[in-house]
């Protein structure tokens, strides 16, 4: 225990703790968008597709924070929009196109990373390594989180109409398509900023579970955003404290804990819980 307290006084531990709180909140907040749009699997495929963008950026520019971010965003957009483009052509449905594009992109990214001799790093990109976060990373996470919360809060009313009833929203003159792209961009931004903490594979859990948990506890959309943020934040911080004494991987612990919180709500929620009649 003393050893753990000692560890907490180190700057790297404090930074990781802050990262857990900020990334957990941002992901939890934005997860309401993913759950309300019912697009979890799409987001999952896109998060994996970020890998080749990262790999290419390293290949072209070396280890530079900004170029890695931009590379990831471009890769995510290419797979996301590319699959939409293929689906619109009417020759293959969206799920099919997305599955093929994202596995192709993922495999490509893997090949590039291996060729670059970054085998050890691959694990970090896939599963996260919160201890490797720099101050710049932390600032980027703060920034994207703030942008997401601000944008969603300011545009909340039209956003909710778009999410619930896109056709009526268009009829009311809301630029539904711009909102769709905006939502997509926000999600990718937050995904990328949390890659280092939880990795391309696991990030989906943090991007879905918090709001999905809140959905079981409330019938109010606004509470899914703020409550999701709170669950994401507290869950991640708690996971950080658990992971050290247990010797577990921090990123993986965050995801496992979010899953457990969801399952608990699924079983015990006063309103929708599976066991509510028997208790």
């Amino acid at each position: 225990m003393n050893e753990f307290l000692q560890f907490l006084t180190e700057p790297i531990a404090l930074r990781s703790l802050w990262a857990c709180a900020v990334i957990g909140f941002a992901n939890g907040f934005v997860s309401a968008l993913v759950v309300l749009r019912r697009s979890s699997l799409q987001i999952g495929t896109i998060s994996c597709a970020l890998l080749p963008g990262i790999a290419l950026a390293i290949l072209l520019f070396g280890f530079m924070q900004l170029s890695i971010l931009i590379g990831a965003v471009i890769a995510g957009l290419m797979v996301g929009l590319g699959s939409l483009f293929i689906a619109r052509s009417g020759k293959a449905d969206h799920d099919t196109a997305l599955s093929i594009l994202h596995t192709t992109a993922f495999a490509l990214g893997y090949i590039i990373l291996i060729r670059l001799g970054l085998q050890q790093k691959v694990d970090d990109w896939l599963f996260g390594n919160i201890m490797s976060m720099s101050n710049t990373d932390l600032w980027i996470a703060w920034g994207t989180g703030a942008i997401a919360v601000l944008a969603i809060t300011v545009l909340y009313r039209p956003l909710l109409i778009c999410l619930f009833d896109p056709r009526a929203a268009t009829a009311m003159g809301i630029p539904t398509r711009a909102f769709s792209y905006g939502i997509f961009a926000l999600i990718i931004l937050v995904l990328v900023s949390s890659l280092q903490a939880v990795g391309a594979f696991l990030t989906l859990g943090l991007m879905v579970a918090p709001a999905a948990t809140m959905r079981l506890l409330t019938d109010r959309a606004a509470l899914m955003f703020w409550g999701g943020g709170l669950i994401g934040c507290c869950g991640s911080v708690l996971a950080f404290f658990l992971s050290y004494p247990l010797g577990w991987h921090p990123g993986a612990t965050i995801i496992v804990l979010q899953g457990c919180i969801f399952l608990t709500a699924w079983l015990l929620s006063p309103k929708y819980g599976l066991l509510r009649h028997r208790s």
Partner: protein
Amino acid sequence: MVSEHDHICWGGGHHHSGGHTLAVEGLCAAYGKTAVLSDISFSASCGQTMALIGPNGAGKSTLLNLLAGLMQPTAGAMSWNGVPLHSMRHETAFMPQRTEVDWRFPITVRDLVEMGRYPSTGIWRSLRRHDIEIVDKALDTLELTELQHRQIGALSGGQQQRAFLARALAQEAHILLLDEPFTGLDVPGMESLAALLRSLAEEGRLIIASHHDLSTAAQIFDHSLLLNNRAIAFGPTAGVLHEQNLHTAFGKRRLTVTP
């Protein structure tokens, strides 16, 4: 304060010279290179209930989408009181098909009805007292006041439809566009919705709905547009659903019509 938007057509069904008329002229629409609608023209006035009738793929939904501004026509024009229809977004309210709605979405009946105020408030203004009164009145008119804090999935089918109609009332829209509102309703449900639509029309609104059931159309709607990619007949429903017109629209696939 009476602005032109607050206008109510008292005693709907009367002829208003040049006003309160939806005029559609030479409307064409296509998905990619496939033409779906060609040269659709009709005009309808407030006080009317109007059905869009035709076989599957005839372009009923497309026409509704055009009227709602959800897609752009390749040719033609739509105007309301002589002004381009889509320059006044608050004037048309769209009601989606029941199967398209995510009934688990975490909003209450009141939240849904408040959405109708959006075209008037815009992004920046929050709901004022005036808006709240309009929402209250819409809820009251459709007998939803006691259900206003329920999540929308916890309503019966009829109540769910009334909730969406309340949103249209809160929007103060003159033109109500409904996508297959009678699908999946039992006979009492159908009759009460038909009565409700008629009373909404009598207060000076124009109701336009896509409708697939030929046997009930005459009961519900006073006017009909029969179409199959082009307009085949338009006018009072009984006259439109004439044997020969139906044959043209539906061909040999036509269902038997019970008078």
